[in-house]
């Protein structure tokens, strides 16, 4: 194919091929990423007989090169001559599936799974299945772990004898000597179960699941939990009680907190898989225990699930279950000793109000919200405030406003600037829910105070906040309440505050519209062009560039242009630069 076309077309490919073994990793990586170009130039025949054998042995390279190679080979079928020859890709991927680096192995397995679909049923049994068996009985755990991910893709497409062999291999790997292989098998158990016939799920998978779920290593047991969820979804309701539930119950009470954590973390999936009856009888008490677990990590995971769990409870008994079983546990968690537990709860507890309705919320939940709003950890308070919209829909925010205000004020003055930053970001949301009157009365002064915060990130967020407030309350409100205060800062003795005025104008000009900008803001900006601090002056130039599009052309020509021209002759280099930039952007030259 190539060759006959002469040197010019060969040269770039020759460079690429040579760079496959360049000393510079980056060049090798580039070359590997263009492997399809090389293969195309070599043609399918030479790709199969020369390029792939070379790549098969190139497993000594850096991880990132191997990762790129593993990925490339997944879409190489056309380049080796189509599905008929796809098996030629197996040797290099097989060697990549045994390297020590997990990401490379996983990528090789992913590519193998992809090309398995391009094998004909015959090729699958002749080429692909033997590879899986070789990996499954390899000396090193790396190859055996890779095999675990390949059973699922070939099983549905092979004859029943081969199916039996595959099941046997999977069984062997589930009782491997090394925990690494048992972990891999455990994590693929659910996926493998999905492709098995229901009878074999009951006869093969269930015993394996039971064994893995009582493995001596908790790192294996915790992975079995997820498999249990998948298996439960496959079985008919009447078999669940006998086949899966004993093991899952045991997992929820495992001695190791990591296993219990996994159960808590997968609780909503589990709930969906086992259905309403088992949920009522088994999962509710299990969930109560997890909420009361002695390990804070487990309580945190369970607290995160409170809302989703309650939402998915069967409708007929939802309210009773929540009120009698879940709420008492939630009440305890509100005063938990661990801040992460409380913070996880605070992020979901507001969601319960929509489920429980107005009366229950006022009677039972509101006191909890109020306690959390006074929590010693800012994250807890923030999480409550950030979810206010849920309560607003049910009972209206007024019920909370008495406690809300002190909480907001305290967060707004927190010593940690990240906390202050977080509360600023919720301000527009709060303003929308509390209404303009409440805002003007209580929160406006806070918003203005942030403009002179000593941390730049806060001042920046505060200007952005003003813009969002104006979007919400309108230009007229802006003109009456915030614009005068912002413009007043232009005479401040601190140049940082004077600059804040400019930043605010940048943010506000568009939402305030032409009239306010021209009449009120522009004069102030222009006046500041004679400021003694160069930083202020060049920010005047930038500000003018920014608000220019809002102004009409007469104002631009008559007022802005002379000022910018003067700034363009400033002795400070930066001022000059930004003035010239503004002149050219606004086309005033």
């Amino acid at each position, binding site marked *: 194919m190539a060759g006959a076309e002469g040197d010019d077309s060969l040269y770039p490919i020759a460079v690429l*091929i*040579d760079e496959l073994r360049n000393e510079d990793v980056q060049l090798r990586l580039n070359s590997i990423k263009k492997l399809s170009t090389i293969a195309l130039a070599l043609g399918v025949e030479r790709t199969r007989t*020369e390029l792939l054998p070379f790549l098969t042995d190139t497993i000594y390279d850096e991880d990132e090169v191997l990762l790129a190679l593993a990925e490339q080979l997944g879409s190489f079928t056309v380049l080796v001559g189509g599905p008929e020859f796809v098996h030629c890709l197996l040797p290099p991927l097989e060697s990549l599936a045994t390297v020590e680096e*997990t990401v490379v192995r996983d990528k090789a397995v992913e590519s193998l799974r992809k090309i398995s679909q391009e094998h004909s049923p015959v090729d699958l049994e002749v080429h692909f299945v033997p590879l899986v068996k070789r990996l499954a009985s390899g000396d090193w755990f790396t190859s055996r772990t890779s095999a675990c991910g390949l059973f699922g893709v070939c099983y549905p497409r092979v004859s029943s004898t081969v199916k039996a062999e595959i099941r046997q291999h999977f069984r062997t790997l589930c009782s491997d000597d090394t925990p690494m292989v048992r972990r891999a098998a455990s994590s693929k158990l659910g996926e493998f179960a999905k492709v098995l016939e229901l009878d074999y799920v009951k006869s093969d998978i269930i015993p394996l699941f039971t064994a893995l779920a009582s493995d001596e*290593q908790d790192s294996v047991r915790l992975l079995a939990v997820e498999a249990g969820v998948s298996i439960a979804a496959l079985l008919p309701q009447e078999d669940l009680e006998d086949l899966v539930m004993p093991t899952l119950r045991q997992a929820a009470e*495992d*001695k190791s907190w990591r296993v219990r954590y996994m159960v808590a973390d997968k609780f909503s999936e589990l709930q969906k898989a086992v259905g309403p009856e088992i949920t009522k009888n088994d999962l509710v008490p299990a969930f109560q225990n997890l909420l009361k677990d002695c390990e804070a990590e487990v309580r945190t995971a369970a607290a995160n699930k409170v809302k989703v769990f309650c939402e998915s409870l069967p409708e007929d008994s939802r309210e009773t279950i929540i009120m009698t079983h879940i709420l008492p546990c939630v009440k305890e968690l509100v005063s938990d000793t661990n801040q992460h537990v409380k913070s996880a709860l605070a992020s979901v507890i507001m969601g319960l109000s929509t489920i429980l309705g107005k009366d229950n919320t006022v009677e039972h939940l509101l006191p909890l919200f109020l306690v959390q709003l006074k929590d010693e950890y800012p994250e807890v308070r923030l999480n409550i405030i950030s979810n206010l919209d849920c309560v607003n829909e049910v009972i209206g925010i007024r019920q909370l406003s008495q406690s809300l205000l002190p909480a907001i004020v305290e967060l707004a003055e927190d010593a940690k600037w990240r906390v202050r930053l977080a509360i600023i970001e919720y301000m527009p949301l709060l303003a929308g829910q509390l209404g303009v009157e409440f805002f003007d009365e209580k929160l406006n002064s806070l918003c203005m105070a942030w403009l002179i915060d000593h941390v730049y990130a806060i001042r920046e967020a505060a200007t952005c906040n003003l813009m969002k407030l104006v979007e919400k309350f309108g230009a007229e409100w802006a003109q009456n309440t915030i614009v005068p205060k912002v413009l007043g800062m232009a005479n401040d003795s601190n140049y940082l505050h004077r600059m804040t005025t400019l930043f605010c104008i940048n943010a506000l000009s568009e939402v305030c519209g032409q009239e306010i900008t021209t009449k009120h803001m522009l004069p102030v900006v222009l006046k500041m062009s004679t400021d003694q601090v160069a930083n202020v002056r060049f920010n005047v130039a930038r500000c003018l560039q920014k608000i220019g599009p809002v102004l009409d052309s007469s104002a631009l020509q008559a007022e802005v242009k002379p000022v910018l021209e003067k700034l363009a002759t400033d002795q400070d280099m930066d001022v000059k630069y930004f003035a010239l930039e503004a002149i050219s952007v606004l086309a005033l030259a």
Partner: protein
Amino acid sequence: YSFVLFCLCSVPLCLRPMQVFTKTKSEIYLFFNLVCDPADVISTVEFNQTGEFLATGDKGGRVVIFQREPQGEYNVYSTFQSHEPEFDYLKSLEIEEKINKIRWLPPHNPAHFLLSTNDKTVKLWKVSEKDKRAEGYNLRDEEGRLKDLSTITTLQVPVLRPMDLLVEASPRRVFANAHAYHINSISVNSDCETYLSADDLRINLWHLNITDRSFNIVDLKPENMEDLSEVITVAEFHPHHCHLLAFSSSTGTTRLCDMRARALCDQHAKLFEEAVDPSRRSFFSEIVSSVSDVKFSHSGRYLLTRDYLTVKVWDLNMENKPVETYQVHDYLQTKLCSLYESDCIFDKFECTWNGTDSVIMTGAYNNYFRMFDRASLRDVTLEASREVCKRRAVLQPRRVCVGKKRKETDVSVDSLDFRKKILHTAWHPKENIIAIAASNNLYIFQDRLTPNGHHNMPEIQSAPPK
């Protein structure tokens, strides 16, 4: 009395100016003894899981790996610089390159993996063999000269050709910035995906694939450093149970933690501590009771701890006293004052089990090391020094006497050289081969072969009990 161990090889690990590996010429030993560079002092010794490889780390930050030849001798397989001296600009502290510990990972694939640590940073190394080389460039010939472009008419794919075996060590992971104090131990978990690193006050748990975060599982740092009463001296995972770890402290206690119970292991599951007889209490009691090493037995049933004067075997099921206590150098009881003045009392001796947990070994002063047979209760003192370790020579037991010499070969306590100490020892996991580090020398001893080529069972012969 003859002893069953004989010298397999002794390797002066003087890697500068060149790597010297000599086994026969005693003059050369002497020469190197005189010019011993402090950087060459061996700081850790560790066999891998099969015993085919032995790794040593030194004060100069180097790791030397030995491979066992089919004939049974160990030869240098790979040498690499694991750590370099660094400077912590924030704390204005120099960070030494000295390798504090080496731990091998269970075998993954044909390559070998080990963790090495200095005071602050743990590194994962891969040691692999390469025996093929790619050949054939399109644009250059094999000497690297550019080819005439007009001669290139077809594309050439490189081919792999056999070449001389090349052993490469490459750093795979660097686990840094997690320790405010000096790392004293690392230990790989039996789940083969996590390991711990312990410093004076904290123990961190790492995932072998994740370098940017670790979990703090034990924290002894008090709110106020003036309340500090103990430091962590060693920490080790249980060989089979992935949730158990033991750590010992300067107060002479060893704690067993169950990671299943809580995410933070500040509360221990068991505390192994022997009540000190109040009548024997002295100024030095606490110093000499500080545990300098802890090793789980291969069976996982026992804990071996070493303090300044003794080694103790604890049954995991009995916390209040050790099941066995062996005196390492009881004759130093009267010398503690001068040992304190010379700082020797703070020396950290390691201890080790043999492959079947039947014999215990630990180091002492004067280049002596001690072995205790747990079944027969016999013990022996042997010496690792150039003068006695002639190749294939059988080691003779030594005796230290407190009073008058009873025999010609006895050594008086007063003539012991406290600068010569054996801190680091290792025992082959399956066979009776031991590695002893004495200053910059590594001695490897093997059990004498019986005429039919089999190894003797470990049998310690010493003076018959009086």
